[in-house]
């Protein structure tokens, strides 16, 4: 006979209290000694002439003023930049914000309300959030769902594709400068890295569609491949004008070269083409035909479910953030803008100089603006057809980018601008 265990809230709270108790006991009796033993043997780092010892760390819990230089030092570590800002955590949060903005924004365009009720009846503080908790609810829903693998699917590739997409999309973040000095990899081939990583996406889409062993994903994958290869050439060519004017592939130096004129003023055609091709690269409306619902169900995503689907969506929104940030970097002067922020002091220590805080502010504002602009076509356009798309990409956009390159060369030879210095 099957026994039915009844859920009791009191038991649940009791178990939580016991769990907390045991965690505390194990932490004090086992983990803390281990940490101190390790710290005893590991040479301590030195920050501003002060050696960080376990004793100092303990005193910091009592007197936080000593910790301010440590926070500043954390900002400058590669780990912080990769993991938090401007790396993965920031990009993921930004992507979530974009999803929410997109849903509310589209709802307003369509005379609807959009997400509104999530958490409203449970938490009093959720009433003013207008359904922001819907993002969390969707995440939990995706996590709770089973990932169904179709029979005959190529399992390793089927599993790997979402992970590869997230990794590749996050790879784009590595060369985006958020403020002076706030870049993960300040390398001289930044733009090349971006195009190299963008080349991953069509391949992964094709592999995912092939591994699904189904017809709709197969057609969707082929469409994705056609679309991306025909739009990568105008994408690269549209950036060539910027490279001619700035004379560098380093993203930070490209931003520096846009003093005093942003490149969107000198190369509006290039910016326009970059924007269009970025939309195509992102498979957003009106270029969402690899995911055309009415013909091929969900395109190359058809067989994905649960968190595997969630990861693909995350990757596509991180990619949206990355391409918006690249647009800002190349054409809108990156972090530059009128000063709005002062030095940020913590316990009398300058942890964020005004220049950097200002840069971060303007970078985030501009990127958010461009992201919203990328969401806009979804409300007003139908999907276009593959042959129109290919003709537009190969014939029209490439021709237009050549005009853009000639404009850049003319600016160069007329002496209006030359590499690194514009308006000199």
């Amino acid at each position, binding site marked *: 006979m099957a026994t039915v265990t009844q859920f009791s809230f009191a038991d649940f709270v009791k178990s939580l209290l016991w769990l907390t108790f045991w965690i505390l006991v194990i932490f004090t009796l086992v983990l803390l000694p281990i940490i101190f033993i390790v710290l005893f043997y590991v040479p301590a780092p030195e920050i501003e002439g002060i050696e960080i010892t376990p004793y100092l760390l303990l005193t910091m819990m009592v007197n936080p003023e000593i910790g301010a230089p440590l926070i500043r030092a954390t900002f400058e570590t590669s780990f912080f930049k990769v993991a938090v800002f401007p790396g993965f955590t920031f990009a993921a949060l930004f992507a979530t914000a974009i999803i929410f903005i997109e849903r509310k924004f589209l709802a307003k365009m*369509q005379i609807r309300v959009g997400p509104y009720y999530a958490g409203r009846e449970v938490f009093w503080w959720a009433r003013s959030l207008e359904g922001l908790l819907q993002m969390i609810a969707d995440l939990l829903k995706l996590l709770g769902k089973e990932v169904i693998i179709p029979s*005959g699917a190529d399992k390793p590739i089927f599993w790997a594709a979402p992970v590869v997409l997230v990794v590749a999309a996050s790879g784009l973040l590595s060369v985006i400068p958020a403020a002076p000095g706030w870049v993960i990899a300040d390398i001289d081939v930044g733009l090349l890295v971006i195009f190299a990583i963008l080349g991953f996406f069509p391949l992964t889409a094709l592999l995912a569609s092939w591994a699904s062993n189904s017809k709709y994903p197969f057609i969707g994958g082929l469409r994705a491949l056609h679309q991306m290869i025909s739009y990568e050439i105008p994408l690269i060519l549209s950036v060539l004008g910027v490279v001619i004017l700035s004379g560098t592939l380093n993203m930070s130096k490209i931003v520096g070269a846009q003093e005093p004129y942003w490149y969107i003023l000198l190369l509006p055609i290039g910016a326009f083409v970059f924007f269009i091709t970025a939309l195509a690269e992102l498979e957003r409306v*009106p270029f*969402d035909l690899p995911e055309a619902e009415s*013909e091929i169900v969900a395109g190359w995503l058809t067989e994905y479910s649960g968190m595997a689907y969630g990861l693909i969506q995350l990757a596509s929104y991180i990619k949206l953030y990355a391409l918006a940030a690249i647009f800002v970097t190349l054409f809108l002067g990156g972090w530059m803008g009128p000063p709005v922020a002062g030095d940020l002091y913590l316990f009398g220590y300058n942890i964020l100089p005004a220049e950097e805080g200002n840069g971060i502010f303007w970078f985030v504002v501009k990127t958010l603006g461009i992201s919203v602009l990328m969401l806009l076509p979804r409300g*007003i356009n139908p*999907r*276009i057809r593959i042959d129109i798309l290919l003709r537009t990409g190969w014939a029209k956009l490439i021709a237009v980018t050549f005009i853009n390159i000639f404009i850049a060369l003319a600016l160069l030879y007329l002496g209006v601008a030359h590499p690194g210095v514009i308006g000199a």
Partner: protein
Amino acid sequence: MGLPPSMQVEESEEGRILTISVGPQHPGSGHFRLVVKVDGDIIVGADPDPGYVHRGEEKMCEYRNYIQNIPHLERPMIADSCGILYPFCLAVEEIANISVPERAQYIRVIMAELNRCIFELYWLGIYGIFLGHSTMFMWPMGDRELLIDLADAATGARVTHAYFVPGGVRNDLPENFKERAIRQLDYFKHRLDQYKDIFYANPLFLDRTQGVGVLTAQDAINLGVTGPVLRASGVKHDIRKVEPYDVYDQLYFEVHSMNEGDSYARAYVPFLEMYESIKIIKQCLEKMPSGPVRTKLGPNPRGPAGESFKRVEAGRGELAYYLVSDGTPKPYRVKLSVPSFRQIPAMPHLLKGAKLADMPAIYWSLNYWPVEADR
């Protein structure tokens, strides 16, 4: 490395052909299956396979008397419930020799035209989804609510009104119906003007629909399509003009047609018809006399043995009933000729040679409703 097993086809001359089954569980089909064979991106053959939602409406009619038949007959097409009930009432009236009061005739025309608008907004919304245009889905669906509220006020039900009965309509219009209708129709006309600018003038919408699935006038006549599909091919044929029923001969309205015969024309003709519907409803509201709205009938109305064939212009085209009576209160035979079923032959004809991406644009522009076609 070969194709995955499910995609392997025999080594033959048709080795390049991939068979795709669109439906019955597919976002772009409805309760309907379309077996499409593609060579690359070009459709080389399409095989419509209706019948998934057959309900036996015609047989059900034989077990019920004329009044009991009313509610279930509008189920095949709840988006245009007055349109599908209209010819049944006309046919029963002819068999049982029932006269209809004039006010009831006007009210019938008002409700038929209101339902035409409701139906065509629904159709337009789904066409938006088929083209990947989400706003084109949301706006007509939202504006449809206003007209549904109007119909609700008149009949007491949102979509399945069961409002037309042999001998008139079920009840009179409410008191302030005229003012309310005129106010909402004015707003609706204003919205239609916006649709024209935002949807029908969108260059991408034109790219997707113009020159796609061209049906010539001769082909349209040969294949037997009706309604807006026929008129979009340049044949000005409208039952309301050709064979006027009730008070349509006393009303002024135009029959719109276009000569292109492509998906754009098939999407634009119903849109123009909504303007005409507004015009017709306003005329009816002005001309409508007062008086009774329903002829008093005895229990189980019946007529002499005989037959009747009546047709009307519904939102999708010509909708006809063939009714045979053997003198009993129940019909001996009821035959529905629905416009959706008449559009099926045009589907493989237009899809052959089209691109796969044009499939939804052609399919839905043909005004094909699986539930109505299967009856």
